[in-house]
């Protein structure tokens, strides 16, 4: 039976798609059969971040409406053979995601994969609700910034009330906090919420911290999931995230400012 993981946040632009791509790749690297689904109908971007935008023929919506079979819409990742991408439609709107249709596709995916990663759209409308509905676990992507923290809190309330698990009175969704765009230096200077602050405010277990980095842009420019940017702090941080998700102990890295030289300390920079 596959585990379904939703990557969500409420707020846009915090790193949901980047995280979905890296996290799904990390699971596949470890040998799990993994599929990552784009739920952002009309604004699809997972295909670009995964570098498979030119191979999209059929999509999630075609499968829901019976216009294509699931196997026709699944795109095999170019780097990992047990990773598949299910892109969404760029032309339809979010009403195309029917409750029954999504349930049917999820059921079919359950039999073929170990992990189903759902990349949620921003907001709390139907697309986001459908993305989180089937989840067993949630990764709540949060930036150390007021509007993101507030929206994450809102999403946590929705996870607790509107998911299938909540409706059926089953064990609640496992919630994980992922702090992204973290700048230890600014935290030290008192100009950015610290990971302790955010944890204290949101009160869910911390899955990891992804440092602010130019690598993210370089990765998306090329359509390479950030976890493949070898040797970069971002790739290592995402590897830790996957390991912790699978129950391994990993100490936090990249949460302390790098040591700076004397002149930099004196004049700032």
């Amino acid at each position, binding site marked *: 039976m596959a585990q379904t993981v939703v990557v969500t946040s409420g707020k846009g632009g915090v790193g949901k798609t980047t995280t979905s791509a890296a996290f799904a790749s990390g699971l596949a690297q470890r040998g799990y059969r993994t599929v990552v689904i784009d739920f952002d109908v009309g604004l699809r971007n997972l295909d670009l971040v995964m570098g498979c935008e030119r191979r999209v023929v059929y999509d999630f919506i075609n499968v829901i409406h019976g216009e294509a079979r699931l196997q026709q819409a699944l795109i095999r990742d170019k780097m990992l053979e047990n990773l598949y991408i299910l892109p969404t439609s760029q032309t339809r709107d979010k009403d195309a995601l029917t409750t029954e249709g999504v349930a049917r596709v999820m059921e079919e995916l359950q039999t073929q994969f170990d992990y189903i990663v759902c990349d949620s759209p921003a907001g709390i409308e139907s697309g986001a609700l459908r993305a989180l509905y089937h989840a067993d676990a949630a990764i709540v992507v949060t930036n150390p*910034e*007021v509007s993101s*923290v*507030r929206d994450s*809190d*809102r999403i946590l*309330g929705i996870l607790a009330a509107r998911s299938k698990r909540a409706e059926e009175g089953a064990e609640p969704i496992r919630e994980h906090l992922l702090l992204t765009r973290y700048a230890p230096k600014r*935290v*030290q*200077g*008192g*100009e*950015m*919420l*610290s990971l302790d*602050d955010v944890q204290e*405010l949101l009160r869910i277990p911390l899955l990891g911290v992804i440092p602010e980095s130019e690598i993210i842009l370089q990765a998306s420019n090329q359509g390479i999931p950030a976890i493949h940017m070898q040797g970069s702090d971002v790739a290592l941080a995402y590897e830790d995230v996957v390991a912790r998700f699978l129950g391994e102990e990993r100490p936090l890295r990249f949460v302390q400012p790098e040591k700076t030289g004397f002149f930099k*300390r*004196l*004049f*700032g*920079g």
Partner: protein
Amino acid sequence: MSFLDYFLGSRKKTASVAKDRLKLILAHERSADTPDFLPALQEELLTVISKYMPVEKDQISVHMERRGDFEVLELNILFPEQHSPG
């Protein structure tokens, strides 16, 4: 923050301002997480009660709040003073 900032006077730490503001607003929003059926419930209760007793619309209030693990639905109805016939 550079070393020179200490001489130029330290600015107020904005991160702690952010944290305090979030603490307040999150506490408020979590408690204000009341279901939207309250106004309708209030309306229907009024209809039922006024069948049996005289009661004014503004004399009835429905309130829901969370106390620990419980949710408490509080209903307050004020009846007008009874004028005994005589």
